[in-house]
């Protein structure tokens, strides 16, 4: 691995001070499962690596039926995947977390790391956005909250400034008759980077869809909401025709590229197929 200096700040203030001091030449290390790979492959060449794992309080995960879910930036994918609260109320997120790499990777990889890496194909991002996640961003003497859907600006690029650190993620409590689903498409059943990822989070009232969010991964420079498809479904009874129409609309909203993992045309087609499947599965979960 390329040579670098290493720091273990004990507080957030210390961490952001280091980031400011080494403006642009430092990287934050949390789980390390992306950062260390990128250093080894010389995609990133930081002179300074700042390990934030010694900062207290950031590994907590709390759930409250009213306030919802809140977890710090050191919470791992494996903790999310196996948390009974997450599995019950945010099953799309739990499913997505379980599809990140292997158990070995998930024991290190953090959800916030997945967020900050901002890969268009990151599994946890679509369900987080679908469930309305908000992140807390810390900088010198300041803290701000950003809706996750507004957090990404491009592949690997976010609204985060060089001296800012994401400290926590919150998800609102779910209302009754809700469900969330994540379906990943890859060539294998595990150890995949998504060709397409589809998250659907919805609330039903009888057969009528009161709330729906459809979020697509790996088909645009960032995860995207299929807002037209959502609008089509919202307020209506979700019958087969409507589901197919919404899925078709989601497909039209996607903007995939062609690469080694799949062609743009195939990815679009999968958005349609998987969006319909995800809506149906969510429906079944509620019923």
């Amino acid at each position: 691995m390329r040579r670098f200096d290493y720091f273990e700040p004990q507080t957030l203030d210390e961490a952001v001070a280091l980031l400011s001091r080494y403006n642009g030449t430092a990287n934050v290390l949390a789980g390390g499962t992306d950062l260390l790979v990128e250093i080894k492959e010389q995609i990133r060449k930081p002179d300074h690596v700042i390990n934030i794992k010694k900062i207290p309080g950031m590994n907590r995960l709390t759930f409250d039926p009213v306030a919802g879910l809140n977890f710090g930036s050191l919470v791992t994918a494996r903790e999310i995947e196996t948390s009974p609260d997450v599995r019950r109320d945010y099953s799309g997120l739990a499913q997505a977390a379980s599809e990140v790499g292997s158990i070995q990777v998930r024991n290190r990889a953090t959800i916030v790391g997945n967020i900050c890496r901002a890969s268009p194909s990151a599994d946890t991002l679509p369900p987080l956005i679908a469930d309305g996640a908000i992140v807390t961003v810390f900088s010198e003497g300041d803290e701000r909250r950003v809706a996750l859907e507004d957090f990404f600006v491009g592949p690997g690029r976010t609204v985060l400034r060089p001296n800012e650190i994401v400290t926590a993620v919150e998800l609102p409590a779910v209302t009754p008759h809700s469900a969330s689903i994540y379906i990943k498409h890859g060539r294998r059943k595990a150890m995949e980077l998504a060709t397409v990822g589809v998250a659907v989070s919805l609330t039903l009232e009888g057969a009528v869809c009161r709330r729906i969010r459809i979020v697509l991964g790996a088909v645009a420079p960032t995860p995207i909401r299929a807002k037209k498809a959502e609008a089509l479904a919202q307020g209506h009874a979700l019958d087969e025709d409507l589901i197919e129409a919404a899925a078709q609309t989601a497909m039209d909203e996607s903007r995939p590229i062609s690469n080694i993992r799949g062609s743009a045309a195939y990815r679009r087609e999968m958005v349609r197929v998987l969006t319909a499947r995800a809506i149906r599965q969510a429906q079944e979960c509620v019923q």
Partner: protein
Amino acid sequence: MNMSVVGKSVKRVDTLGKVTGLARYAGDLSLPGMLHAKIKRSNIAHASIKQIDVSKARALPGVKAVLTHQDVPRVLHYGSPHPRSASVTKDQYILDNKVRYWGEGVAAVAAISEEIAEEALDLIEVEYEKLPAAFTVEQALCPDAPLIHDTSPGGNLVMDPVIVTRGDIERGFAEADLIIEGEFKGGRPTPAYMEPNVCLCQWDGNGKLTVWISTQAPFMVRGVIAEVLGLPLNNVRVLVDHMGGGFGAKQDLFQNEFLCVLLARESKRPVRMELSRKETFLSGRSRHPVHVWLKQGFKKDGTITARQALLTFNSGAYGSHAPGVTGVSTASLTSLYRCENVHLEGRAVYTNTPIAGAFRGYGCVQSYYPLDIQMDEAAERLGIDPAELKLRNAVRGDDIAPSGHAVTGHGLEDCIRRGMAEVKWSEVRAQAHETSGAIRYGWGMGCEMHGSSAYPGIKEQGNAIVKMNEDGTVTLVTGTTGLGTGAHTALAQIVAEELGVKFEDVGVVHGDTDVTPWDIGAFASHTTFMGGRAAQMAAAEVKKQLLERAAERLEAAPGDLDIADGMISVKGVPGYQISVREAIAPRLGLPAAHLVGTASYHPTKSYSFAAHFVQVKVDTKTGQIEVVKVVPVHEIGRTIHPVAAAGQIEGGIQQGIGHTLTEDYVIDTTDGHSLNPSFVDYKMPLSMDMPPIHTIIIETAPNPGGPFGAKGIAEDPIIAIGPAIANAVYHAIGVRFHHYPITPEQVLDGLRKKNEAAPRPGIAA
């Protein structure tokens, strides 16, 4: 034959170290003062090197040696070193003033740490003069294509075409009731063994070189290094103990061995060179991508009247095994399914892409995939069940095999019949496909045969030394290499069986070219067949000496004695016996007898057979294919170690499923760089993707040339699985594929075309 050791799944001699972490692989070794070496690789596919400036790299503190093409011997060598071989081509330099593929080494550095060596690579400045390149076979065969090598026959052909002819195809096609022809394409799977290539080199004070290396062919490594550096063979010692797989590819030399040796000489320090996973892809060996045109004629009863084929292999930037693979592959189409009239032509073409080499299945994956699929197509057109058609045409005893020998027994027919019974073939084939919903199921089967040993391409020789120690234990000294299949265990079983001693009393010494008898290397499914037979012959020699000695003690003729379970007895005289130990032990003040047997065995050829039966599941909305179940039936003459044999079959099936559905090393045809040199994007089937495999091994056609009738097993299982899957997919969705890997996207395209072509309901068909 009543066996006491052969046929038992004894405790393997190599696995205790593997499960405890104590087994030492080449990369686990380090020496005092050891340096770490790295290779600078080209980022262009075809270019002349105008200039290389290494001054900054040399000046970096910690760097101990830097080599470019100006610093290394300029000797043309075989990338893969079979002796006197027609299988390989002499077209490589250690470092050349040209590069012919993206990722070829252009310089090497040894430094006190890997990090410093890597930083030094960044400081090496290479000025290239870009040359026009050919990234595909079509481009390389154009009349105005850039020439990648100056060697004959020219035109970017690696060697003269291979032509195999029997009978008269014109007459054959004239007699046919049905003629089918088709074009087929095979992708670029790679072996992707778990242990990246690695070696450690040290020169002692007397100019002797020791190389610890992960190779299938230590004597070949010794031979090529000695030849290129002008050293006598006894000044090059090559050691290999455990190795993390090779699957054929680790027969080649990969530049790194030469460079490691020379960096060690230059720096006067031991040097380790360990390739990264990415480098193992970039500079490794793949299966040859292939294009096959195949035409066959059939009579109404299914008899094949003629077969004609043109096979074109993409060799990549160097020849490596192209002549061998082309020869084996082309000749393989004379057989499997009987046909008296054949005309077959095979060609291999240089391109500016990574090097194709030896890989399990050696050309037969590429030839039997088309042949078996076309049999399936013919069966449908003739109205005959495909398994039945293959059974009627299966190669059998006294037919002439691709090697020119007569086939022994009825192994292939036995495999087909057994598999059909096992899966209840006619029932599962007749089951109505599920027609509602997106999921379809189907069953298919495919066949193969593969030779043990590389004869007649190479005249081989297996050697062994068997020694009996004064306590009655036995040491087998063998030059064979253990890739992980349990070969040394099988050899020890053969020796124990022949000698009549306990398996636990046989030890194996291997992996040291200074100590063991010469061996050609572990490939061509021949280690048990050839090395095992040599070991059996050497053991028989020791047995003869032992019985002569025991005869004196027992006052009986040696011919009247028998050994079983470590006891020597007189036939027909119960209870009159002495132990092997007593027979050899020192006596009356005299040292123990010196009992050593040596043997050399020159095999010809034997063939193993298999039929694979497969169930697949196809999601017609996503195009994803899942293999649900595999029933492989293999005929291998005699099973030495059932668990190890089944394990090899199951591993071959895993690789074959990968070949057919997910694995393809993809080269960008605009600039020659590889698009997926990693385990994330080179997609091997993993634990969740692998179906249950119900392995069946039968022993109905033993070969008299093998130990106790045993034949090879290593390569067979990767061959039949491919066409079996493709045929099962056709059964499931009615779409015929002529290539591998079959991607989900292609499945959807195929379904779309089929639906467009299908007659609309209401219109009479």
